[in-house]
Every structure is written in structure tokens, then in C-alpha cells.
């Protein structure tokens, strides 16, 4: 059984007004525990709408969301319990910080869960460690942090609830490469430590290639493709047809092959490319 199942879900914004938008149209996907799943698609394809369904922030117009096989909307009063089990980091989460110290802000979620002081303190320290926030940063005001640090504090705020499913909507948008890297490493650490199902929304093919095992491709409110990373990126033509393209290294390998340099075509990251090229020259590192 999948951890999270989306069953034929549709959603319409502003239904019944002249401003109707069909944001999701008959979407079905399965999300597994112990894996990192990427959701990719261009702006407006419905990614954010879909992930807000996962923790019950919006209710499907049609279809069901199953968590461990149970409909999360079976009892609407218990939806807040679902929100602790499915942690959602929204787009630009740094705008939700409000407490006097970073520590207190990370503790907001666990406090709402009704955990005791000792447990909360421990979780705050643990999740700060995941995202790489220093001990002294915890005592600062969140508004004195840099952009990247704010983002990490906000992500730690969700991790502190220790959700079984961790969903991140464009966690790396607008960050420099170093900031991106530390956030993705933090997410990976959380996934390894807890065995949670992790879902990352992005439109960077390179980030997806590097960190995700499964990929869901969205296009025009529908699911265009789902599969293992290698399967998806080997269908480069289809990806290009919906305007997405392949990771830069995959593209490079293709260009080299066209010039008669024979390299494997299932290369997605810089590290893989490096290894393949070294092997081509018959050398060891």
C-alpha cells in the first residue's frame, strides 16, 4: 500500500463565478514511504494546488486523498491531525515566521501538537541540525537572519512536527547555489533519519535529477508522466514537447553522442558525468 494516494482528484478555484479556474483535472498519483518524489511542471500547471491537497488545506472538488489507505476527509473535524502527519512547507515559507526567536518559531508547530517542553526542546535542536542552523542562530530574531537562513528556519519549523510525509513547495526558489545545496542536503538527511515519504516540488530539472528517486510530471492541470527518475529523463523528447527539457548533463551527453563521442545516455548529474568522462579516457580518479 502506498503511503499517500491521490485518487482521481479535480479542483476548481472560484467555482461558480466568472473567474473559474480548473487547477486540477482527474489527477491520480501514488507516493511511497522511504523515497523522495519530485513533482515537476511549469508555472500554473497545478503543482501547488496538488500539494495543498495532501495535508487537507484545500478539499478536492472531486476525488479522494488517502493517507495509509484512509480518506483524510472521512471526518472533517480530524483534519488537523492529518496536518501533523503530513507536513507542508509552502512556497516562500520565510514569510510565515513571526516569533521573537528562531527557536520559538520552530517550536510553534510542536506546541500546537500539545507536546511537553522537554520533547519540544529536543525536536527544535534536532530539526535545526537537519537544516544546518547553528546553535547561536536559534536565539536570534528570525528577521535578523539572511534569506537562506530564514528559509531553513521555516523548513525546520515543519520538520519539528516530525511528519510522516514531508512536502516542500519549491524549497529552493530564489536561493543561491550554496543555499540550495544546504536545503536539499537537509531534506535528504530528514528523509534518511525518519524514513518519511518526501515530496519536493520544483521546476529545476537538475535539482530533481540530483535528489529525487521518483518523478511526477504535471502539465495543464493533469499528470503527464510518472515513473522512476531514469525512466522519466530518458523520455527527453516528450519532456521537451511539454516545454520542460532534460537535465543539463543529459543534454550534454546527447550533444557529445551526436558528434560521435560514445558516452552512456543515462547520465543526469554532474557527478555521474564526471565519472563517465573519466572512464572514457580510461583513467581512474
Amino acid at each position: 500500500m502506498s503511503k499517500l494516494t491521490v485518487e482521481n482528484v479535480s479542483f476548481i478555484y472560484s467555482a461558480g463565478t466568472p473567474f473559474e479556474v480548473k487547477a486540477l483535472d482527474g489527477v491520480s498519483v501514488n507516493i511511497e514511504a522511504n523515497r523522495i518524489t519530485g513533482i515537476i511542471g511549469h508555472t500554473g500547471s497545478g503543482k501547488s494546488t496538488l500539494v495543498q491537497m495532501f495535508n487537507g488545506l484545500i478539499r478536492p472538488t472531486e476525488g479522494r486523498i488517502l493517507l495509509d489507505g484512509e480518506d483524510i476527509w472521512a471526518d472533517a473535524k480530524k483534519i488537523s491531525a492529518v496536518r501533523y502527519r503530513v507536513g507542508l512547507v509552502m512556497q516562500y515559507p520565510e514569510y510565515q515566521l513571526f516569533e521573537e526567536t528562531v527557536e520559538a518559531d520552530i517550536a510553534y508547530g510542536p506546541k500546537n501538537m500539545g507536546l511537553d517542553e522537554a520533547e519540544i526542546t529536543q525536536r527544535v535542536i534536532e530539526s535545526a541540525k537537519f537544516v544546518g542552523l547553528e546553535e547561536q542562530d536559534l536565539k536570534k530574531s528570525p528577521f535578523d537572519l539572511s534569506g537562506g537562513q530564514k528559509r531553513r528556519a521555516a523548513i525546520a519549523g515543519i520538520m519539528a512536527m516530525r511528519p510522516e510525509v514531508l512536502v516542500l513547495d519549491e524549497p529552493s526558489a530564489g536561493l543561491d547555489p550554496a543555499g540550495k545545496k544546504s536545503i536539499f542536503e537537509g531534506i535528504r538527511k530528514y528523509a534518511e533519519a525518519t524514513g518519511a515519504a518526501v515530496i519536493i516540488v520544483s521546476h529545476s530539472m537538475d535539482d530533481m535529477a540530483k535528489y529525487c528517486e521518483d518523478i511526477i510530471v504535471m502539465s495543464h492541470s493533469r499528470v503527464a508522466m510518472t515513473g522512476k527518475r531514469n525512466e522519466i529523463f530518458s523520455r527527453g523528447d516528450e519532456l521537451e514537447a511539454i516545454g520542460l527539457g532534460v537535465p543539463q548533463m543529459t543534454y550534454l551527453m546527447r550533444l557529445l553522442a551526436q558528434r560521435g563521442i560514445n558516452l552512456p545516455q543515462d547520465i543526469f548529474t554532474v557527478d555521474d558525468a564526471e565519472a563517465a568522462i573519466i572512464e572514457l579516457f580510461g583513467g581512474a580518479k
Partner: protein
Amino acid sequence: MKSIAFGQYYPSNSIMHRLDPRMKIIMGILYIVTCFLCKNVITFGILALSALLLIIISKIPIKIVLRSIKAIIFIMIFTAILNIFWTKGEDYELLLSWRFINIYSSGLYNAAFIVIRIVSMIIGTGIFLTYTTTPIQLTDGLEQLLSPLKVLKVPVHEFAMMMTIALRFIPTIIEETEKIMAAQKARGADFSNGSLVKRAKALIPVLIPLFISSFRRAGELATAMTCRCYRGGKGRTRLNVLRFSFKDFVALFLVIAFGTGIVLLNIYAPGYTM
């Protein structure tokens, strides 16, 4: 698109939507004055018909209009009842008399007249102004209508700019509020259950980020405007210059003719007069 979704504006391609906002403001005022000129059964009847006609011309669904009338239904019922019981019309037929309550036919007439007047006023302002004109068009129109006041050193442009910016950012701030509320809900915030104090407290995590981002936005906007050499209204030209066209004058003529007709009918038509 969202910026015009705010307020009561209802998009459609009716002739009313295409009239010049300045003319619509003037016509709206004239129409309200006309509502107060009606005096007898015939003129009030015509007024009610004219309100219906306005709705049809502007292609606004009746459902939407009824919604705004519903908002003041209690005030309307209250005024109607006051009129029924308190109108003293010794010259008129006494319909019902019970202890100290006397209901005259004049009271019923007055109640009906008042209701028609209020409903027509609401429909009139709605059709001429809010339903068919975007808030931005309205401020633009108002700024130009009031521009003669600049001679008296009234900062008309500055007020209009403040209004425009406020209107422009209301939907943005609503959207932002929704986002922040969703983000805090994802962390277990509960805005709909618990005591009043508890619910008010639950808003702190929404209000603080909202204030911070509003100040940031205001600062950024001021910088952006300065970078594009904004320095107040003096010598400023506009992108969309409002121009009266033939249909605007025809519309104005019709409204004036309607008002004049009502005044004449008040004099010549028989029956109960308010």
C-alpha cells in the same frame, strides 16, 4: 485578473460597462436625485421599472443584485413598518383600527414608496458605479471630475493615487493573508474553534508576518516609483486618457430626460401624493 475581482465589479460587455466612468458618476448622482423627486404612484412605478431596465441593460445577473439588496433587508423592513404605523393621514381611508394602532391607506403607500426608493437607489449606484466600473476606473474618473479643486490647493491627485494604490493592494493583501493562514494551519493553527480570546490569539501568527510584508511592500513600491521619477501630480500625463464619446452624451441625455419626465408627471399625474 484578480485585481478586478475585488469589490462588486462584475465583468461583462454591456454598453453600461463601456461608458466613460466620469459620465457614469454624474449619471449615478442624477439618478439618485431622481429617486428623491418621485412623489406619486405613477412616478414610483416608473422608477421601479427603470431600475429593472438598468439591470437588463448592464447584463448583471439578477441574483448578484439581489445579494446586495439582501444586505439591507432589515433596515428596509424596519422603515416600512415605521411608515405603516406612524403615518397619520386623517384625510385618507382608515383601513384598520385596534386600540392605539391606526393604519391608514396613506401609510401603506408611503411604506411601498420608501422601499421602492431605497431599492432603486441601491440598484442605481450599483449599476452606474460598482458593478460596471472597476475601482481603478472609478478613482480615475473621480480624480478628473474633482480636478478643478486643485485651484483651491486640494491635493486631488495625491488622494486619488493613495486610493489607487490601496485598491491595487487590497487583493494582494487578501491573497497574502490567505497564504499565511494556510502556512500557519499547516503548523496546526486553528482559527475557527475555541473561545474568542483563543481565536484572537491564533491571529497573531498571521498579523505579524502580514504587517512585516506590508511595510516591505510599501518600501519597495516607493523605491520603484521614485526610480521612475514619480514626483506627484504636477505635469503628469496618463496612459489611458478618458475621452467622452457620442454614446456617453446620449446616455447622459436619457438620464436627464428621465428626471425631467418624473418631475412633469409629479405635477400632472393624479392619485396619492407623498
